[in-house]
Every structure is written in C-alpha cells, then in structure tokens.
C-alpha cells in the first residue's frame, strides 16, 4: 500500500503540476512567434489534452460503433448487412414501445428535475437552514444505484389487500382507504414508467439544484435591488431579472438531463427489466450487447441515440451564438 500511496500522491500533485507547466511552457514557446500565429495556435494547445482524452475514450469507440452498426451479429465472421440493424430497430414493436417511453422520460425527467431544482435553489436562498435543505435534496445523488433500487423497492412494495402493507406508498394511500397498487407492475397509463421516472427525479433534482444555485449566487445583488427599487415585486424580479440571467445555466442543466434521460437504463433494468411497458432504448442496447451478444444491433441503437441528440446540439449552438453577441 505504501507504493500505491506514493503513486497516488504523485499523480494528484504531479498531473496538475505537469499541466500547469505545459500551459506555461507552451506560452513561453509561442511567444517566439508573431502575435497572429500565437492566436491561431494557443487555443489548440489549451484544448489539446482534453481532445486527447476525448478522442481516445469517446470518439474512437464511437467511430468503431458507427462502423459496427453496419455489420451483423457474429463477432468471429462479421458480415456486412448495411442498414438491416436499423430496419430491425424501427420495425420492432418492443423498440417502438421503448421509444415512446423515452419521450416520456425526456419530457418529465427534465421538466421536474430542472423545475424543482430551480424552485428549491430560489427558495432556500432565503432561509437560514439553507445548507441543511440543500443537503437533503442532494443526498439521493450520493446513494449508489444499487441502494436506490433497495430504497424504492421498500417504497413501492406491494402486499395483497387485507394484509399489512410493507411499502411506504401503499401504506400511505391505505390510510385514506385506497387499495394497494402494484406501482412497478402497472402498464396501464404507464404508471410504472412514471414510478421509475419519479425515482430518477428524486435522485437528480439535487444535481440541477446545485448547479442552478451556484449560478444564482453569482447574480449581482445590485441588479435585484435596482429592480425592487423600481417597484417590482418578488415574482417580477424573478421573471424579469433572475430567470433571464439563469438562461445559459438552465440550458446546460436541461441539456444534461435530456441526455441523461436518453441514457437511463440501470434503474429500468434492475427494477423491471423493461416489463410492464417500461422498456427504454438504452436497456434494449445493453441487452443486445451483453445478454444476446449482438453487437451489430446494439451499435445501431447507439447510433440512433447519437442522432437523437443532434437537435439538442443545434439548439446549444444557437444559444452560444446568442450569448456571444450579448457579451
């Protein structure tokens, strides 16, 4: 363990030191060149390390995935099948049901995490026990997915009517006389999908809250005072001053949550395996990849996910351009 400790300390101290030295060193180096040339080269030096990591860990596998999606199942004797895997995906009834579920996830997970996160960030800003409140909302994010599964099994547990309920929700609705509901086993009205979405909202609202709160703290109090002095009430202050200033941050959080909703699979996999109309695309992909061993189809689903975020990315570009023009 001693040598491991030394390595770890070396890394924690060394890597930042190396990076700082790299930045400083390259700045000295390019100071030998004319300003024009410096301005062209410097950005690439600064984003170089990041691009290196991203290129190897994310871009290279993605290119392989895109290529793999055009081939068949067999790993030993890959056969080019063109768009067959995509055809399978769009004609499969299971996949279509999963797409619908993903739309529900996308809309409601984003809406609730960002909405409640914003609400909480704004409200706790004004109370003295802010740290406590934030910690409680944040707590679920600190819980691993495995434990979250156990927690919500307790929440959603079902016992037949007439027997003592062990699930918190069924016990709660039992006190007002409503019968026990199988929360995770009800395809009707997509109750089970919403039950799963509720779990993710519970876990991720803290994430949205922390980021929004950090941005909130950065708003110049003078601006808010000026608005109040002009006679605006709190709600108007929020709508006319705070909310617009939080725009970029809300865009970041929303984009992240939308992408998270597209990638969600482990909560669905461990609790229902996609039964009761809860299946999602990412679950299909994982199953194809590791349970059925069909990398061609799994890759096709991954490519569909990549294409699905193109509109979101287009929106983001527009956001930046707008931001730039205002700055």
């Amino acid at each position, binding site marked *: 363990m001693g040598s491991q400790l030394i390595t770890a300390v070396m890394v*924690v101290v060394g890597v930042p030191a190396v990076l700082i030295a790299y930045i400083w060193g390259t700045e000295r180096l390019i100071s030998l060149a004319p300003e024009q040339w410096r301005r062209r080269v410097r950005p690439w030096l600064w*984003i170089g390390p990041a691009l290196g*990591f991203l290129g190897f860990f994310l871009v290279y*596998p993605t290119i392989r995935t895109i290529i793999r999606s055009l081939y068949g199942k067999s790993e030993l004797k890959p056969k080019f099948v063109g768009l067959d895997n995509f055809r399978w995906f769009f004609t499969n009834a299971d996949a279509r049901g999963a797409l619908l579920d993903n739309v529900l996830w996308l809309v409601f997970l984003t809406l609730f995490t960002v909405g409640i996160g914003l609400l909480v960030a704004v409200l706790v800003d*004004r109370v003295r026990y802010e740290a406590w409140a934030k910690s409680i*909302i944040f707590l679920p994010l600190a819980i691993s997915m495995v434990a979250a599964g156990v927690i919500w099994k307790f929440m959603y547990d079902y016992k037949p009517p007439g027997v003592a309920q062990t699930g918190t929700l069924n016990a709660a609705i039992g006190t007002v006389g409503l019968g026990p509901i199988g929360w995770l086993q009800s395809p009707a009205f997509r109750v089970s999908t919403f039950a799963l979405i509720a779990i993710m909202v519970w876990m991720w609202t803290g994430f949205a809250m922390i980021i929004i709160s950090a941005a909130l703290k950065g708003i*110049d109090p003078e601006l808010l005072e000026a608005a109040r002095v002009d006679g605006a009430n*709190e709600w108007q202050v929020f709508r006319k001053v705070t909310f617009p200033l939080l725009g970029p941050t809300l865009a970041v959080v929303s984009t992240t949550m939308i992408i998270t909703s597209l990638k969600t699979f482990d909560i669905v996999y461990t609790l229902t395996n996609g039964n009761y109309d809860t299946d999602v695309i*990412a679950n299909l992909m994982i199953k194809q990849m590791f349970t059925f061993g069909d990398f061609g189809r799994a890759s096709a689903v991954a490519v569909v996910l990549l294409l699905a975020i193109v509109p979101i990315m287009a929106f983001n570009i527009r956001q930046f351009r707008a931001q730039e023009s205002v700055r």
Partner: protein
Amino acid sequence: MTILAVPEAPSAAEPEPAARRPVRPRRKLVLHLAVVALMIIWVTPTLGLLVSSFRPQSVLSKSGWWTAFAPPYHFTLENYQGVLEQSGIGQAFINSLFIAIPATVIPLFVAAFAAYAFSWMEFWGRDVLFVVVVGLLVVPLQTTLIPVLKAFADWGLTGQFLAVWLAHTGYGLPFAVYLLRNFMGSLPRSVFESASLDGANHVVSFFRIAVPMSVPAFAALAIFQFLFVWNDLLVALIYIGLSNSDNLPMTAAMANLVNSLGGGWYLLGAAAFLSMILPLAVFFGLQRYFVRGIVGGAVKG
C-alpha cells in the same frame, strides 16, 4: 481597474442585509412551509432505508419500516456488522479513495484549461467543436469498454489504478468542459478587457481572474465527479476486476454482499449508509464555496 484579488474565505451562507428585502411574516411562513414540505418528501425514502437498516431481516418483509417506532422494538446492529465483517471491506474503502481522488483532480484541471479556451479565445470552428464535445455526453459508456480494454491490455494497464484514473477522466470530460465553460463564459468581459489592457496575457488572465472567479463551478464539478467515481462499479470491474481483484473499490465489495439469487439484500441498506459518509463529507466540505459574494456580482448581464 484593479484585477480582482483572490476572494476571502467565506463563512456560512449568511445573507448580507443589502441583498435581502425584508419579507412579510405571512410570506415567510409560506416559504418555510414549502421548503420543509419538499425536505420531508425528499428525505422519506432515505429515512425508510435508514430505519430498515437497523431492523433484522425476519421483520423486514413482514411490516413497514414505520412500525419500528412502536413496540416491540427489534432494532439491531447485525446488518452493519455483516457489512463491516465482509472480507476485504477495509482495503476496498482505501481503494475507493485511491481511485476517486485522482479521478476527480485530473479532469478538473484538464477541463479548466479547455473551458477557458472555449470561452475566451477566438478560433475557427470553436462553437462547433464545443458542441461536439458536449454531444459526446451521450456516448454510452458500454460501447467504449471493448476497444479501451484492448488498448489497456496492450499497454499493460489492466488491473491498475492508472487505468481507471485515465478512463474516468475521459468519461467525465464532456460534462466538466460543459459546466466550466458555461460558468467561465458568463464572467464579465470587462474584467478580462481591463486585465489585458494592463498587459496580462491569457495565462495570467486564467490564473488570476478566471480560476478564482469560477470557484463555485469548480466546487460543484468536484462534488459531482467525486460522487460519480465513488459510486461507479462497472468501470472498475472491467478495467481492474478482470485482472486484479485486490484493487477493487467499495462498490464491488458492497455488490458482493448479495448472493447470485439475491439473498442478503437487506445488508445493502447498511452498506449504502456506510458508503455514503465520505461523499457527504466531501459535499459539506465544498458547500462553503457556494456563497454569494465570491464572484462579487460578476454576472451583470
């Protein structure tokens, strides 16, 4: 205009009188009710697990956790004992630390430089490249396992901590760059302009202006990255576990509390709380950086 100095160490988030308008008592009550209601809703599931972790297995499937507050009391520490007696849990905890700390520090630095460049340097293709970086958020981790593992095997990294440090950096960069760039980009241009008028180049601007003013964002990022790495199981299992079980983190030891048929699941509650202590400590520790005034009213719109 002078360049902002490094901000003073903040205390707990006490409001400055000038920033707050006195709220009418009735409004205050509604505010408190709303906050407390949300807190209760949020804490109930966790509370349920906490109480259940102190109950013996035999009563867990028979009665709800709220019945534990009425006699007969069945409280027990056997679940916690079961977790702590799990072979190798101590080493696993240390491994988790070894994995999580570097895997948080490295992406923080790499992303900081990149975020600054995306925010305050002009170069051809900047916006499109940035959006591509953000778009990489959607790449499913599982699609990267095989090619990366093959490469690691060729370089002899499998089973070592370095493998997961590098991997977590790669996986965490899209979000890190996104978050930091958003924050740095919203800093007031005037501060940078006057700095460059005073003769500061980008390196100085970065270290003297951008970094100190972005502390809340760094704190938030550190919390999230630490948390995700601390709770990660798959990356560690694949890049370390396939070759060397000695270096596995706590998440693996905890997952092993349950047998292949699911028996022993009641230990997971106790395990979850034991494992939660450190990330919560990190959160509380970094909380103090989310204070109004650090940025000094940077966001002027």
